[in-house]
């Protein structure tokens, strides 16, 4: 990695975003799990379900605040480190963020206080409505954020305005109903639900293994297994690959994920294994499974998926069109308020969509119009993301997804047979599987964002052109600051989480299993800590 402002800003954004997404999925999923548990409590009146809601609610709270705190960083950072980006697309990108605040985050944050403080102040139904408001708020929040992110992958409903030198919104509904955004939302929310399901499943399994809080643990596992199975299926089957055909660079991302250099006849095979080689432009030792990629990505038997080499050729054409747009833009700007010749404005209109491609040449030449054929060809090859990392992270994610379905399916079966504690080794698997959905989620974000490079907004603005006027020292200082603060907070959070899990629910209802709170002798659990 070169030590320049662009790389450092990218590093900082990646680090803070991946860190933020350690907390977000659990908030997304656990809020729904809490709402489900409390609904059972209100409809059946059984006290144990209230206890479950409160216990998982405590863990939810420890996680939630860090999601909020690190979310602030995300909102600040676009302006701090990506000021040209903020100017260039704020007209479109800012709107979903603001609507997220209005519609979702206010709801979530206003009611989350009442969730914790309102048990004695509200009626049962009033509190249940509060819990659902928190769940709805956090999920709406994800929807708006993914509409914003989906627009970066597929910038619909916007056009460049030469007078303001930025992209401006032309159709709000296209931005909202962007197919890439919709696919992303379903996939990301499902991933969050899987995280929550594995969290509840794993912690409950640990209680069963230690013989503590049996009643709470078994009921929680039943909820988690069913919820987790549905969510894993949804995350894998409705993966956001469906959005990968929407645009050219999404196609490039797909080809890179598959290490597919040449266009394959439809339906394209899935490369289960291989070593992609960026230099040689081929994937060594590839093992293909016929048809799979074609089926998953196109949902048809006869739609061709273009390979990297063909997409590069297309990018080269786009760059040449972009140069025409750039040339016309200079003429329009030079004309100022006087009349622009019609031929010029027609050229601009015809090629404006590819303007961003001309900026790819900035790496080699100040004025894109002066670029040589060799430079244009080089810039076209720059549109190929690093294939190796994408290839591997995608496979880790998919492999884990299959494992999630198997594990939650097994527990779903066991809970239906009322044999959840029949196989201790399976319970141990559940305990150690807790981090895996997070690994898969972070891999997913890596594929989505790293695969979008060199663009920050596909076809519109290269990442290298989007930064602020900052010095290396400034960015290094904030990176160090974030590393220190985030490391300390992560250690504290993990400590509190483990402490709360070890302590277990604060009170147990008199029934249905009176002995469930008594630790088994010799189980090796630390004594419950004194009440504070």
């Amino acid at each position, binding site marked *: 990695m070169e030590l320049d402002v662009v790389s450092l800003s990218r590093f900082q954004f990646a680090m803070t975003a991946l860190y933020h997404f350690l907390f977000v999925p659990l908030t997304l999923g656990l809020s729904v799990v809490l709402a489900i548990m409390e609904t059972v409590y209100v409809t059946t009146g059984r006290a144990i379900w209230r206890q479950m809601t409160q216990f998982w609610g405590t863990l939810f*709270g420890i996680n*939630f*605040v*860090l999601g*909020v*705190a*690190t*979310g*602030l960083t995300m*909102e*600040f950072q*676009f*302006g*701090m480190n990506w*000021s*040209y980006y*903020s*100017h260039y697309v*704020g*007209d*479109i990108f*800012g*709107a979903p*963020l*603001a*609507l997220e*605040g*209005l*519609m979702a*985050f*206010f709801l979530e*944050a*206003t*009611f*989350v*206080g*009442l969730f*914790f*403080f*309102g048990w004695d*102040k509200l009626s049962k139904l009033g509190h249940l409505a509060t819990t659902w408001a928190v769940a709805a708020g956090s999920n709406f929040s994800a929807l708006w954020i993914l509409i914003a992110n989906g627009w970066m992958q597929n910038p619909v409903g916007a056009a460049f*305005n030469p007078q*303001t*030198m*930025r992209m*401006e*919104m032309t159709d*709000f509904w296209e931005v909202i109903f962007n197919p890439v955004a919709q696919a992303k939302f379903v996939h990301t929310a499902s991933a969050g639900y899987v995280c929550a399901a594995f969290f509840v499943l794993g912690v409950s399994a640990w209680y069963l293994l230690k013989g503590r809080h049996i009643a709470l643990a078994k009921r929680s596992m039943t909820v988690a297994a069913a919820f987790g199975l549905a969510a894993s299926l949804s995350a894998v089957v409705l993966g956001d690959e469906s959005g990968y055909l929407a645009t050219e660079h999404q196609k490039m991302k797909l080809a890179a994920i598959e290490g597919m250099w040449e266009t394959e006849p439809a339906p394209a095979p899935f490369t289960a294994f291989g070593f992609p080689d960026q230099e040689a432009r081929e994937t060594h030792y590839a093992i293909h499974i016929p048809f799979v990629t074609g089926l998953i990505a196109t949902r048809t038997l006869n739609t061709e998926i273009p390979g990297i080499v063909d997409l590069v050729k297309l990018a080269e054409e786009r760059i040449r069109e972009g140069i025409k747009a750039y040339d016309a833009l200079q003429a329009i700007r030079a004309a100022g308020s006087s009349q622009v010749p019609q031929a010029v404005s027609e050229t601009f209109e015809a090629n404006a969509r590819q303007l961003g491609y001309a900026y790819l040449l900035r790496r080699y030449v100040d004025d894109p119009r002066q670029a040589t054929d060799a430079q244009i060809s080089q810039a076209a090859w720059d549109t190929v993301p690093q294939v190796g990392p994408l290839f591997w992270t995608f496979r880790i994610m998919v492999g884990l997804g299959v494992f999630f379905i198997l594990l939650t399916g097994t527990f779903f079966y066991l809970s239906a047979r009322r044999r959840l504690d029949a196989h201790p080794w399976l319970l141990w698997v559940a305990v150690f599987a807790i981090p895996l959905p997070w690994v898969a989620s972070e891999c997913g974000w890596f594929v989505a964002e790293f695969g979008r490079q060199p663009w920050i907004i596909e076809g519109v603005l290269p990442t290298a052109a989007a930064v*602020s*006027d900052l010095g290396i020292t*400034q960015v290094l200082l*904030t990176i160090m*600051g974030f590393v220190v*603060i985030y490391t300390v*907070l992560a250690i504290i959070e993990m400590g*509190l989480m483990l*402490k*709360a899990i070890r302590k277990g629910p604060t009170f147990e209802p008199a029934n249905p299993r009176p002995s469930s709170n008594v630790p088994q002798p010799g189980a090796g659990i630390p004594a419950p800590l004194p*009440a*504070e």
Partner: protein
Amino acid sequence: MILHELLDYTTLRILWWGLLGVLLIGFAVTDGFDLGVGALLPFAARTDMERRVAINTIGPVWEGNQVWLILGGGAIFAAWPPLYAVSFSGFYLAMFVVLAALILRPVGFKYRSKRPEARWRNGWDWALFIGGFVPALIFGVAVGNALQGVPFRFEDTMFARYEGSFFGLLNPFALLCGLLSLSMMVMHGGAWLSLKASGPVAARGRAYGSIAALAVVVLFALGGLALWLFVDGYRITSQVVTDGPSNPLLKSVVREGGAWFANYAAHPWMLVAPAFGFLGALGAFLGMRGQREVLTLLSSKLSVFGIISTVGLSMFPFILPSSIDPRSSLTVWDSSSSHLTLFIMLVGAVVFMPIILAYTTWVYRVLWGKVDETMVRSNSETVY
């Protein structure tokens, strides 16, 4: 979509300037008392139990209050993209300091009472103090710099160049504004503690709050005087086009003494704003002395409203002037989003703001009543 032409561009820009004010004031009158309570925490509450009482007065509501800030940031991004781009990157390190302080706050509230050790709790109390004190001060410093103009200019691609430094932000006038905003928040936090806390915490809240209220009166007056004597304002000299494209470079601007007072000279009714600033603070002072709790909090809100409005009105139509290249200055007429975006966002605000205000009011009503030691003790596991 042609619906957006129902409202012309000029009107939408003015409405969004007003809404920006509503959001900033909304933040200052709600999250403002959270910041104030944070800044007062080590002084107004001395024992662990007292601190828990103080923290639990804001425990259930700070999270919702903070959304005013988040929404304010989002609205600046969406409605005033160049303002978002220039201010957040220009004030880079100051923004980071504010951000770091704000990150400590949610965590501090939630984690402080999760462990019994005195060292742990003291540590978080200082974190909460920083989380209240630092943003309260720096937001004022930022406004002080905006009034003087900020050293940035646009290249013709609209890439913003910034030529200031972190320490340049800490000039005397800006620090005066910082102290004013800190006093405002402390006054507001004191008024809140007086209403919601009980026993010694409420009494100290009143004591510190009334001192802060006097400080607000004095610093606001001093600030006005310093603005008149030492700070140049800005004025557009080219013809003002209110519905043109959002490109700041199309106008010309001069810097001149007294320009920040021109709006008040032209429209004397605007003097209501500074009058509210002074009267509210005096009302809060008297209310705290006379233990009229609700009146105190309302007066304090009025003062915050008046002071923030005073700044906005005196700068109008400027939002962020540039000290090194005045024509790059951001104004209401040339740094907004497009006509369509402003309209859509307005629809969003008109639909959701009343809903937000309705449920927020409901939540405050549910939580109505004082927090005291008995309440904290009997709910020790669930409250902060």
